[in-house]
């Protein structure tokens, strides 16, 4: 079951096309990475899902229903450009944002109290936002995004500006929300920052989707049978089929090499050959990073 499906969504501004026929499907309770460089069209797609702007063509459905204003209440959105009312008190501000999402004041109060306690901000409820540190303000922004317990969390560049401690804290909260049933969309141009978090990804470049699917499968399909080996001894006269791509000395007599096998060859074959010739200290299959895959796909598309 997909919580969100977008079919052939397009959007053009006067000067350029921001999205061209983009289709994605986001499985329920997954963490979905919407990846691509700046200006690729990620924020446009997110704004369309949030009904801040309208698409020119295509369809979006949430839980099988066509996108409707009431869906605002099932989405929690943390935009890339985010802030708070500086002169407003933390508690009042969260109250206002929760009520805008359709929560009653009683329910809002209860949840605000819970979340402030959870993130250790209880004594700041009566303070104005301008008195908060940047990290605390970011936590408040996160609370505002999740207060109405949205089924779909959309986080645009969530970790930009977060210090590592807060980033980890927020990551843990996101996992916990996912456990409770939420689906999360990460949108970022820094692919390495969310790579390990995502179950599924879609790559967007120049307003087009160029690749999507479960992350593991994508990586598998881009595997090029390369292995990284740490060893002692002489790595020479490997049997045909194994080619050494690069090699170098790590320390003293320990060396490292990247070896490619031919398709269909079992890593055990390489390993047994290595064992017979050298003293193996490390052996790992090189899984291509999403960033590498992205660059590869973009380059293939250009040539």
């Amino acid at each position: 079951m997909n919580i969100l499906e977008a079919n052939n969504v397009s959007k053009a501004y006067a000067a350029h096309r921001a999205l061209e026929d983009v289709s994605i499907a986001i499985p329920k309770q997954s963490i979905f990475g919407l990846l691509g460089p700046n200006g690729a069209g990620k924020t446009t797609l997110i704004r369309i899902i949030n009904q801040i702007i309208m698409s020119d063509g295509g369809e979006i459905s949430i839980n099988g229903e066509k996108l409707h204003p009431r869906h605002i209440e099932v989405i929690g959105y943390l935009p890339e450009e985010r802030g708070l009312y500086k002169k407003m008190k933390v508690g009042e501000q969260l109250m206002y944002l929760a009520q805008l999402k359709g929560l009653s004041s009683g329910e809002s109060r209860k949840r605000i109290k819970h979340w402030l306690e959870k993130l250790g901000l209880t004594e700041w409820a009566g303070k104005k936002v301008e008195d908060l540190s940047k990290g605390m303000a970011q936590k408040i922004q996160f609370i505002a995004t999740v207060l109405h317990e949205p089924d779909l969390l959309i986080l645009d560049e969530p970790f930009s500006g977060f210090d590592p401690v807060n980033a980890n804290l927020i990551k843990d909260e996101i996992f916990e929300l996912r456990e409770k049933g939420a689906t999360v969309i990460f949108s970022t141009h820094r692919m390495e920052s969310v790579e390990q978090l995502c179950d599924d990804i879609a790559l967007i470049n120049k307003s087009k989707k160029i690749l999507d699917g479960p992350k593991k499968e994508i990586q598998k399909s881009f595997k090029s049978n390369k292995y990284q080996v740490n060893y002692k001894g002489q790595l020479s006269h490997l049997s045909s089929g194994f080619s050494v791509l690069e090699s170098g000395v790590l320390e003293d007599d320990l060396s490292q090499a990247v070896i490619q096998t031919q398709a269909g060859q079992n890593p055990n074959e390489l390993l047994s050959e290595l064992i017979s010739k050298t003293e193996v200290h490390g052996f790992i299959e090189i899984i291509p990073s999403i960033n590498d895959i992205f660059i590869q796909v973009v380059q293939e598309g250009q040539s």
Partner: protein
Amino acid sequence: MKQIILVLKREYLTRVKKKSFLLATILTPLLFPAIIFGIAYIATRDSGNEDKEVVVLDESGLFGDAFQGADYNFQFTTGSLDDAKAKFQEDGAYGLIHIPEIDLEDATKTFYDDFSFFSRTNPGLQVMEDFEGSIRRALEKIKLDRSGIDPAVINSLKVRVDLDSFNLSETGEAKESNSGLSSVIGYVFGFLIYMFIFIYGSQIMQSVLDEKTSRIVEVIVSSVRPFQLMMGKVLGVGAVGFTQLLIWIVLMFTLSTVGLSILGGGEGMEMMANQMPQEVELTQAQEMAANVQNMLSTVPVVQILISFLFYFLGAYFLYGALYAAVGSAVDSLQDAQQFMFPIMIPIIAGIVALGFVLQDPHSGLAVTLSMIPFTSPIIMMARLPFGVPTWQLLLSMLFLVAGFIGTIWVAGRIYRVGILMYGAKVNYKTIAKWFTMKV
């Protein structure tokens, strides 16, 4: 609708709870009268010139008693002008008037300009007029004496006229009108609307700008349609203005009532103390109060008040929406200046035209400006005390409603794009593009 109310509530409460709101609301009705009285007090004190010594060197010998009874301390001197000047330098007198020999033989001569006034600083207009008047009256008197005309004849030729004006209604009922009072009321109400547009319009703009610069706007519009956000804001700030206005009306009413009763009470006490002479004064005061009441009855008070609330809201919506659009288009107050210009032009045109309209409230210019929605709130309020045909009032109100629906629509289209544009170079062309853009 629920969303608009939430936005409205926030805009309203954050403003009303501010200390500055409380101060402005309570102090303004006290401050304005205080400033006016303060200026008047200083002005009356200043006019005391009895201490100022003015030396008069009268070589003609004609002005012996011309300067009697004037406000200044006049000292006559003799000798040459140079001597008088030297003495003036030493003495520290305020001024020196020199009157040379005057040839009065030619009875047809009516222009005399040989007089001089010396002083250490530039004398004010009033001072010059005082002295010129004294000399002119003295010369006129001398010439009258020489002409042999009986002064009584001259006096009998001077007459005074008071034209009572009446409004003749269609039923033929004549009602006394008072154009002086109408002008004052018209000016005050026209000006009040002008002031409110400025104060509350820029508050809306500031509020839009704050949301944009604090980057909260995208969070908000993921829950609220941009149009709802804009309307909530316009209505919220408008409600603040309305609250302030009501408090001012109540405060001024209470203050004037309390003030009058204190004055009245004081008079009563004095009257008890010594009966007769005060009684006369009291009847005079009563007569004056009756006069004021009479004058007020010549003005359609209820119509003016209801219309004022209507035009106040109409003008506020019309301009408030435009201020919101400007706030959405720019990133800082400085950038806003260039877009403020076209908004200010009709407002300022209205205020400039106010003077002409008050001189002739039924002229073509006045009627036209009171129909155009951009100027009608100021101009129609100025015209109302003079009596405006009902059809004109209703038509003007209708146009105003159409006008603010129009500006809100235009502003909404600019606003929805503008609030999400950060750091964009904005000119009129980009705004036009936003207006036509499909979002």
